[in-house]
């Protein structure tokens, strides 16, 4: 976006942060829609486990994790021990260990601990996807924009699901439920277009992921665990056979702001 105040470095930075923040809000909208649908059904599960709408809201605003929260609600419903809760949540969310590690490599050097914990508190599959799709270092302004749009939808969706149960027509929940996957596609497919290697990896992953639904042994694992196994297997093979040149991984954020090929649209 051309800035009227281009002559003043300070103002330019400020307006750049503002426009990055606005992009964050814009890209947060499809996430918010998808979140609303998913968290609504999560709220129904929460109510079935005896949670009040407030408790559902609290869980969602503190955790931002669909599979994890779902697992947690089943523990609450069963009245199992706190230790079981901790273990199950660990397993259900273990894929975030990988994502967090990947994100750590994209943070500007010297990012303060507070900002790091801010990023990790809001590390969800969807925010990970859109943040990692941007060039340069992660921007807290962009993430903040996403969060302000998506997080309330997630939390209030859960509370509404607790209260309203099956008020939202199934047709609508079903349609909204694919919004998140549509976003994932919008992140990965352009990479396939740019690099044949990525295209190959995506196709292999799709095939492997479908196969794992049926393979004996693996198919009985939780979905989260399967995602981890597939990710580790495919990524390490790709890293072994197609290592990338060691380099400073990111361009200066100032330089990348001019290009932003992925953000031209909409």
């Amino acid at each position, binding site marked *: 976006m051309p800035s009227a105040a281009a002559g003043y470095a300070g103002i330019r930075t400020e307006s750049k942060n503002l426009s990055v923040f606005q992009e964050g809000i814009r890209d947060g909208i499809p996430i918010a829609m998808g979140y609303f649908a998913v968290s609504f059904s999560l709220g129904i599960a929460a109510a079935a486990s005896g949670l009040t709408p407030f408790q559902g809201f609290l869980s969602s605003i503190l*955790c931002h994790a669909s599979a994890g929260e779902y697992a947690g609600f089943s523990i609450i419903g069963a009245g199992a021990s706190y230790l079981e809760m901790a273990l199950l949540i660990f397993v259900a969310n273990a894929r975030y260990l990988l994502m*967090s*590690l*990947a994100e750590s490599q994209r943070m500007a050097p010297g990012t303060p601990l507070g900002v790091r*914990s801010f990023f990790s508190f809001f590390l969800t599959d969807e925010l990970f996807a859109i943040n*990692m799709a941007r060039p340069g270092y992660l921007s807290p302004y962009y993430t903040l924009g996403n969060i302000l749009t998506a997080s309330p939808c997630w939390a209030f969706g859960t509370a509404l699901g607790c209260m309203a149960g099956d008020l939202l027509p199934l047709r609508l929940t079903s349609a909204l439920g694919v*919004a998140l996957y549509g976003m994932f596609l919008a992140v990965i497919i352009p990479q396939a277009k740019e690099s044949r290697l990525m295209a190959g990896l995506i196709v292999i992953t799709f095939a492997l992921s479908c196969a794992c639904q049926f393979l004996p042994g693996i198919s009985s694992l939780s979905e989260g665990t399967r995602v981890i196994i597939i990710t580790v297997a495919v*990524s*390490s093979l790709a890293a072994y056979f197609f*290592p990338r040149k060691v380099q400073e991984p990111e361009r200066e954020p100032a330089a990348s702001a001019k290009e932003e090929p992925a953000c031209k649209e909409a």
Partner: protein
Amino acid sequence: MSTNTYIYILVMAAVTFFIRFMPILLTNGRIKSPFIQSFLYYVPTVTLAAMTVPSIIRATQSPIAGAAALAAGAAAAWRGKGLFVTAIICCATVFLLELILV
């Protein structure tokens, strides 16, 4: 054993945050190993691909609508549509198809 829902929620939140924060806390700086660098470069794409398929087909009432959403979304993304437009196209595909199918 008497349990408290708020303690459950607290345990849930603490473990969730722990998982997301530990790797960031422990790897303060760039990882030098070319293998791990490459590995982490591939992780985001692969993990999102694994999460999308086959889940998108199972998320809808009719698996056909889910599969159609996958095709429509991939085509839209290939043609350079952004996050929002691609997501809308997927939703609309499911909604319209399920009017007929379900």
